[in-house]
């Protein structure tokens, strides 16, 4: 049961990264690829009807984590207090930037909301990447299963890490660039004209950088947390995840060369998903590893909520998530197709 919930939560967060990832990515690349007001509008239209639905996966994933593994929720959320609060502020600023931009006609305000949209999207990507790297590296858990991390220390991993050290910064940079590529491929898929051409061109330039950092992340992870490979050694099929990463990267490269927009974007979806599944496989059956001497790892077994809770939860969760997938699919289907260059205003 615990293993099942581990993968349910991992799957929900993966869906979140794949979906909200592209609209975060659009925010990151938007100042670079959308030059005219017309193109900015086109880029905004591409994410307009779906971005808030994408963000729901974060909230629903967080809620699921809370109910299935209360101990993990309590420990990690209070431990990462400051960065999580900053994430909240960034989510607020970003949601408002998108909403406000659509309500103003003054170019000064539009420029301002463009800037806040870019900054909040980029910082969110960095924070999410760094957060995942923190979990992989481990935190100094106390005997009571709680911890509190300073924002930065001497940039070294080891018994007394900070939230930002060389490894988590690497995680942040990887997330920033990977989501930027994801956003570029989405824009290429959803737009026409100059915006489409520029997005593809930037994606081709970004691809080799991603390939290099992805390759570097493997030895880096083993240095930061040698235990990462234990599960891989015990269960050979876990290697499927890194294999998928390589296949996805190759797919993206090939599709970019052949101008297959759909395949390139799908490649990027699979790339993000397999990176995350690979990380989850490296953690399993631990949820939050400890570094230092005092505490012990928070494992699935220790953090799982009571048996009745998780049994009943499985029934409604299955039912609810099927409905959720149905709604999301309907919205994506209704707003399918490319955004034309000359979009007229309508809206609410």
């Amino acid at each position: 049961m615990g293993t099942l919930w581990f993968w349910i939560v991992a799957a929900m967060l993966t869906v979140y990264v794949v979906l909200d990832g592209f609209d975060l990515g659009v925010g990151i690349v938007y100042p670079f690829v959308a030059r005219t007001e017309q193109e900015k509008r086109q880029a905004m239209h591409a994410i307009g009807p779906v971005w808030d639905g994408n963000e729901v996966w974060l909230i629903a994933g967080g809620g699921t984590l809370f109910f299935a593994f209360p101990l993990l929720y309590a420990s990690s959320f209070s431990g990462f207090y400051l960065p999580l609060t900053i994430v909240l502020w960034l989510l607020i600023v970003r949601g408002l930037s998108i909403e406000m931009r659509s309500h103003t006609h003054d170019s000064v305000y539009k420029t301002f909301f463009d800037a806040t949209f870019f900054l909040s999207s980029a910082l969110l990507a960095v924070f999410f990447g760094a957060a995942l790297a923190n979990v992989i590296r481990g935190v100094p858990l106390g005997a009571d299963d709680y911890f509190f991390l300073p924002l930065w220390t001497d940039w070294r991993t080891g018994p007394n890490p900070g939230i930002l050290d060389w490894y988590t910064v690497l995680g942040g940079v990887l997330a920033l660039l990977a989501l930027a590529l994801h956003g570029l491929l989405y824009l290429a898929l959803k737009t026409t004209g100059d915006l489409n051409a520029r997005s593809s061109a930037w994606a081709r330039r970004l691809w080799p950088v991603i390939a290099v950092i992805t390759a570097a992340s493997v030895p880096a992870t083993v240095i930061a947390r040698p235990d990462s490979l234990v599960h891989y050694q015990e269960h050979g099929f876990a290697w499927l995840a890194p294999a998928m990463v390589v296949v996805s990267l190759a797919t993206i490269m090939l599709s970019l060369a052949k101008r297959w927009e759909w395949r390139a974007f799908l490649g990027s979806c699979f790339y993000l998903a397999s990176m995350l599944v690979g990380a989850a496989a490296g953690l399993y059956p631990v949820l939050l590893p400890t570094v230092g001497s005092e505490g012990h790892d928070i494992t699935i077994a220790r953090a799982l909520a009571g048996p009745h809770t998780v049994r009943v939860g499985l029934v409604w969760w299955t039912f609810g998530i099927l409905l959720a997938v149905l709604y999301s699919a309907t919205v994506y289907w209704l707003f399918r197709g490319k955004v034309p260059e000359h979009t007229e205003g309508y809206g609410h």
Partner: protein
Amino acid sequence: MDALTLHRIHFAFTITYHYLFPQLTMGLALLIVALKTVALRTHDPDQRERYDISARFWARIFAVNFVLGVVTGIPMEFQFGTNWSEFSRRTGGVIGQPLAMEGVFSFFLESAFLGLLLFGEKKISRKLHWFAAFMVFLGSWISGFFIIVTDAWMQHPVAYRLMPNGTYEVTSFWGLLMNPWAWLQYAHNMSGAVITGAFVVAATGALYLLQQKHVEYGRIFLKVGVVAGIISCIAQIFPTGDLHGKYMARHQPAAVAGMEGLFHSTPGAPMVLMGQPSVEKQTIDNPLVVNKVLSFLIYGTTTAEVKGLDQIPRDQWPSALPLLFYSYHIMAGLGTYFAALMVVAGFLLWRGKLYSTRWILWPILLSFPLPYIANTAGWMTAELGRQPWLVYGLMRTSEGYSKHVGPETSLFTLLGFLGMYSLLSILWIVLVYTAIQKGPKAPVVDEGHDAHTLTTA
């Protein structure tokens, strides 16, 4: 200030601010469905057009408030973990369930159908568009239900058992959802949300009629607002408020004694209409009372004894007693005023004089902020009444906060939220004010946010 106080202020501030938005969106969602229903059922094309435009106008206002509700709502989920980690660790196996259900059942539904409601009018049929409005309404009301189930478990814990490691687990899923406290509180809370929606819609109508602008819409708004207002204001007092009060008196006598300022057990207890409670002297200063009414309201007889604070151990008294007393009296006083105003307006509507009677249009216009105050005071009554318990009778508030998060850190993020939310308030006022000034028929030049495919429509 100590860490506990700061964590409490932190949560109280962010949740009070958050609830300014859902109370309007939950109420408006119902009124939008009502407008869409009239539009769908009428055969007169002019009439239909006017109701459709009205629904579209309020859907736009809904959207602004919805976005603010979402962005201020995410911090609430996070804060259970960040600021109240010990509470989350121990009760997550119970309250995590309704919170996760809210995410899975309600948010997906709301976000998907809100997109359709706002962007899909020309892409889907009239009936499907009505359906989208209905699903948005359903989603927002389901969301409210799960939140109240969560709060009701803290007010009146049911269907739980204590596990060996000190955490709580649900023993019956249906027991948790069928908590009687939850249903009473839900009915009372939702009629409060409809009151906010009705007053905002009616006030906008009154403004248009007083300004002699958008007059035909002013009439529609006023009519819909007053009809919904009468029903919800009366339901708010009887039966929902009455039943909730009686249930509370049985299960949280300390809270009721605090709300009423009843320091001593009294047979034939009076109802205090006004006064200033003094915890030190254990009296009410300058009291204005109606004899025997409290006993009658709670027990149905004028002679029954109502339990006073003297029968409750001092360490279980509500910790902010005067604030609890005032919150309750503001809520009840305003509720009475709302019902009176709406009944008079309803009478004038029935006699066909409402639209031209300026002396009633002015109070309707000026009263729109009051439901926000009443709903906030209502929540403060519920939550202050629960103190000093975090989970009534099981866990004290002082046990639940994040002990590893110091007061300095909590103060810092509290200031951050204060700053951020003051900016939000300015943006909100500007947006809503502009939308109302432009009126329902304003040409929509909004772009960037909407759906590209609509251009083909």
